[in-house]
């Protein structure tokens, strides 16, 4: 539900020091071809036939066959990646584009702040479960400060004025922290890349999320009270998030030699890294 959407993985790609903006403009072709011709002339300078011994690098990156992601459901996964791609291109992106024209970016960032603010119980629980005491304290501080001074969470003065960053942790990471293997790779509808462990984690996080009606009779802080409201809130979340990342998915698609493999490996690498941290 949070960091798992296909289009978020897009972020992984920008190996620049820079990030996305909704107003991204695409270079025109003449520009590109002249850039390429520069790059080509540069590469001719760099030819050195002897690269030297790279054994230690092969150890660092591992044997490609052994480091491959466990993917027994690749048939279904490829199908779902395709469905998600169509969903993004034909539904999420056009709606998000219209939405971003109506609502200025500042407002959309505020909506995003508010959604993150409400997910505080998930972050707190998972920081605590991983004994990240300082982060748990900071999260709690953020919640209090942003509730009072951030108009109930629409603004993030805890970050902008106090430098207290959000510490995203989810149950999938917590389970990984306790040594649970990731299991097979699974592509979820709309949400995109996941694996068995993270899907179980997602269910747990959803259960305690204030933005989902699960067990609403017993948990006092639940905002939606039924599935219809869940879907509405989920829709706003997806569209708002998409509107803050427009253009990124297209770049990923352009970059990837094999989109399916790229998304799968990038997701897996990113999750492993997050669990290590």
């Amino acid at each position: 539900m949070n960091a798992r959407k296909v289009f978020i993985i897009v972020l992984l790609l920008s190996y620049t020091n820079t990030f996305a903006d909704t107003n991204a403009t695409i270079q025109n072709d003449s520009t590109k071809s002249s850039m390429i011709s520069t790059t080509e002339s540069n590469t001719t300078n760099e030819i050195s036939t002897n690269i030297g011994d790279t054994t230690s690098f092969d150890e660092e990156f591992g044997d490609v066959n052994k480091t491959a992601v466990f993917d027994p459901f690749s048939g279904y996964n490829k199908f779902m990646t395709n469905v998600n791609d169509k969903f993004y291109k034909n539904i999420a992106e056009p709606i998000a584009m219209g939405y971003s024209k109506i609502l200025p970016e500042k407002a959309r960032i505020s909506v995003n702040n508010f959604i993150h603010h409400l997910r505080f119980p998930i972050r707190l629980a998972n920081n605590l479960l991983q004994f990240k005491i300082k982060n748990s304290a900071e999260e709690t501080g953020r919640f209090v400060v942003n509730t009072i001074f951030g108009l109930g969470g629409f603004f993030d003065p805890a970050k902008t004025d106090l430098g207290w960053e959000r510490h995203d942790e989810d149950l999938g990471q917590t389970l990984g922290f306790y040594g649970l293997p990731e299991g097979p790779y699974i592509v979820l509808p709309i949400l995109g890349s996941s694996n068995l462990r993270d899907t179980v984690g997602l269910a747990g996080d959803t259960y305690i999320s204030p933005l989902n009606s699960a067990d609403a009779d017993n948990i006092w802080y639940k905002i939606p009270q039924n599935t219809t409201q869940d879907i509405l809130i989920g829709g706003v979340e997806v569209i708002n998030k998409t509107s803050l990342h427009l253009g990124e998915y297209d770049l990923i698609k352009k970059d990837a030699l094999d989109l399916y493999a790229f998304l799968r490996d990038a997701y897996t690498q990113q999750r492993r890294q997050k669990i290590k941290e």
Partner: protein
Amino acid sequence: MIKINKLLKIFLILATFGTQSFALRQNEIEPVMHSKIEKVLTVLRKKESNTIRGQEIIRTMDPVFDYSLMSKLALSSKTWDSITPTQQKEFRKLFITRLKQSYLDKLDLYNNQKVIYKGVKPYQKGRLQLQTEVVGKDETYKINYNFHNSKNSGDWLIYDVELAGVSIIQTYRQQFAGLLKEKSFDEVLTQLRENQPLKAKKS
């Protein structure tokens, strides 16, 4: 005669290396990268055409990347050693062009985000990692530049970049390995060539 040969040799060496690299000493990594990244950001803020900006950016960043090593690692040494020198050369050319183009494409999305420098930390097997963070609209992203001591000469060059925990080289390794299970190396080269729409346009 011998002298001329010697001079010619020196000249050739200078011509190859002089234009190519400006490798960093260990203690220069952070300050030089800092100034290079800031330079790229300054160029991006300029009102000039994308062509000029792109060229300037490539010129700024080129010297610190070990493109030859990156090409080999992206394929994995095993595959690299199994192909002919002609194929190696062709692959390197296509791969590097792709890498640079994708870098420039990303920069198009830049909108004044702040870069935070976290310093140079020891990394695997005696290598070093420059850690930076980019403050985005939604999250803060880690971007790490991995350096190796090129030929143990004390010159440090980049061999990989990690974005939010994802290594560029690693994703390419996996993709190429997957592709090579179904296709011959020449077919992969063709795909690389065709994936570069700009080249197709030229012909």
